[in-house]
């Protein structure tokens, strides 16, 4: 059952080949058998079986929606009423949200089953899942390697087939990079497509939630449920949601795929370059045309991001003060001492680093040199994409500069870790949709992702482009176990 696509699972449930309760138990058995991967922070056996029983009633009445009775895993960044939401942090180890995130509410209404909450880098800050308070997540392809991050638990869970599909969030690459490292299809939607209400904020002008699945067809089903205007998110965009599955089969004849010269320079790992080129040749066979484009300011995206994201994070994370919820230090002299000790003990090193960088960039005398400067660079990076999309329909290139690295390789050097998101960050800065799909395996048998970048709200085209590739290749069907 764990090898089936979402459509096959829905069919199996409709045909009564298996019930939702059986399906849910099956995935819980797999989670238990693969506990060493540490993909989950919280597993909800009882709650999910109850949801499954309810789904079976709905299925029996013939009133099923596409996800009715289908188990899923959610990143532990989405608030879930009654079930712990930790965001990978000691700060929220005891936090049970008093409400559901809009995304969670939508999946509940769609009838899907929540198996549990997946492991992640603390407050989504990290590219390896090594900053989680709940310990590292193992890459199912090679357990000595990282799964990527920050949505590493979701990636590992889907790759190891502990869940048919999962949700993630992406602020600078946190869906696409782990999808690349674990051989998955991961999509970061356009900024404003998916509600951020109840999604614990890291950098509010960059954060977006999206699907992490084994195929583009599965991603289309998840995105359909997640998308849509939400008046509770002030940055949610009121724009029609297309049928994401309807155009999957569209012909790619005449599609113009832009190749950024800056992504295919001598710095790119030769193995990844050759796999990326093979994928692009495949697209030529499908009738697409490759065109050279330029994103001349893309090399400034990492520096720009490491001002803006920490600045927003320092502001967002000021709410964790030990006064109203979450961790509070056991001993303190006065209010200031309580704040300082609570935050020193409740946050891990990477989170503290980013809060301090953000506080510095926003402090008197430095605001113009850092924050304002970065916002101007952001404009240049965004304008690069606008110009590029005059020449092409989608942009393609590598997702990450390397495949999954070993544990500990970059933990002593924050900057080396940050550079892992060199190809993904500019997409968040511009607010565009981006995707990673499996395009090959490196010589160590680790997955390599191809990144596809689309125009605003053109997720349907990205899914179409990904799906057509998956019809003629089988990289996405490979499984580590």
């Amino acid at each position, binding site marked *: 059952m764990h090898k089936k696509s979402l459509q096959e699972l829905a069919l199996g449930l409709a045909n009564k080949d298996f019930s939702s309760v059986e399906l849910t138990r099956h995935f819980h058995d797999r989670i238990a058998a693969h506990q060493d991967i540490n993909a989950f922070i919280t597993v909800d056996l009882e709650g999910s079986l109850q949801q499954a029983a309810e789904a079976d009633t709905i299925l029996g009445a013939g009133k099923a929606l596409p996800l009715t009775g289908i188990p899923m895993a959610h990143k532990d960044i989405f608030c879930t009423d009654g079930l712990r939401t930790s965001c990978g942090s000691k700060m929220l180890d005891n*936090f*049970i949200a*008093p*409400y559901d995130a809009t995304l969670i509410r939508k999946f509940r209404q769609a009838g899907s089953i929540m198996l549990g909450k997946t492991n992640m880098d603390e407050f989504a800050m990290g590219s390896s899942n090594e900053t989680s308070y709940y310990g590292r997540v193992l890459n199912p392809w090679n357990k000595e390697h990282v799964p990527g991050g920050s949505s590493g638990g979701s990636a590992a869970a889907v790759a190891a087939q502990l869940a048919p599909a999962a949700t993630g969030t992406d602020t600078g690459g946190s869906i696409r990079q782990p999808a690349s490292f674990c051989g998955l299809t991961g999509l970061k939607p356009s*900024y*404003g497509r998916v509600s951020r209400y109840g999604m614990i904020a890291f950098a509010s*002008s960059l954060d977006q939630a999206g699907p992490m699945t084994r195929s583009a067809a599965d991603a289309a089903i998840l995105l359909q449920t997640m998308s849509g205007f939400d*008046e509770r998110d*002030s*940055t949610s965009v009121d724009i029609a949601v297309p049928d994401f599955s309807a155009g999957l089969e569209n012909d790619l004849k005449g599609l113009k795929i832009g190749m950024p010269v800056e992504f295919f320079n001598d710095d790119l790992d030769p193995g990844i370059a050759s796999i990326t080129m093979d994928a692009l040749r495949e697209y030529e066979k499908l009738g697409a045309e490759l065109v050279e484009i330029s994103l001349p300011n893309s090399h*400034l995206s990492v*520096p*720009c991001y*490491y*001002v803006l994201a920490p600045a927003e994070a320092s502001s967002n994370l*000021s709410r964790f*003060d*030990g*006064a*109203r*919820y979450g*961790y509070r230090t056991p001993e*303190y*002299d*006065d*209010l*200031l*001492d*309580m704040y*300082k*000790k609570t*935050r*020193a003990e409740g*946050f891990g090193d990477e989170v*503290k*680093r980013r*809060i*301090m*960088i*953000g*506080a*510095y*960039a926003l*402090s008197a005398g430095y605001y113009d040199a*850092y924050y304002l*400067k*970065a*916002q*101007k*660079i*952001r*404009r*240049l990076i*965004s304008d690069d994409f606008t110009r590029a999309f005059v020449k092409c329909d989608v942009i393609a290139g590598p997702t990450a500069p390397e495949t999954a690295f070993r544990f500990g390789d970059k933990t002593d*050097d*924050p*900057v080396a870790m*940050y550079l892992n998101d060199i190809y993904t960050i500019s997409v968040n800065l511009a607010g*565009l949709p981006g995707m990673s799909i499996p395009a090959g395996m490196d010589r160590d048998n680790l997955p390599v992702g191809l990144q596809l970048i689309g125009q*605003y709200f053109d997720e349907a085209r990205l899914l179409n482009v990904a799906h057509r590739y998956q019809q003629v290749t089988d990289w996405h069907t490979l499984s580590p176990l």
Partner: protein
Amino acid sequence: MSINNDDVEKIAHLARLAIDPGQLETYTKNLSGILALVEQMNEMDTNGIAAMAHPRDTKLRLRDDVVSEVNQREKFIKLAPASENGLFLVPKVLD
């Protein structure tokens, strides 16, 4: 630009973070490294470029001024590290 231990202590205070004196040196080194990275921005002349605060320069919407939240006081107070009579308890601020 590299920063020194005094700068880090000042920033940590602004960010309301206690810093273990034994870790000060490491923070200074790491934060200086990150600042060296972000200062690559300075190679670009950005005079006359409008700052971009939001993708697509989204404007915030206004909604009707009506009550939309329901009273969940009990639920919220249950999450508090310390509370009394339905109020959050913190150390005394004023004498």
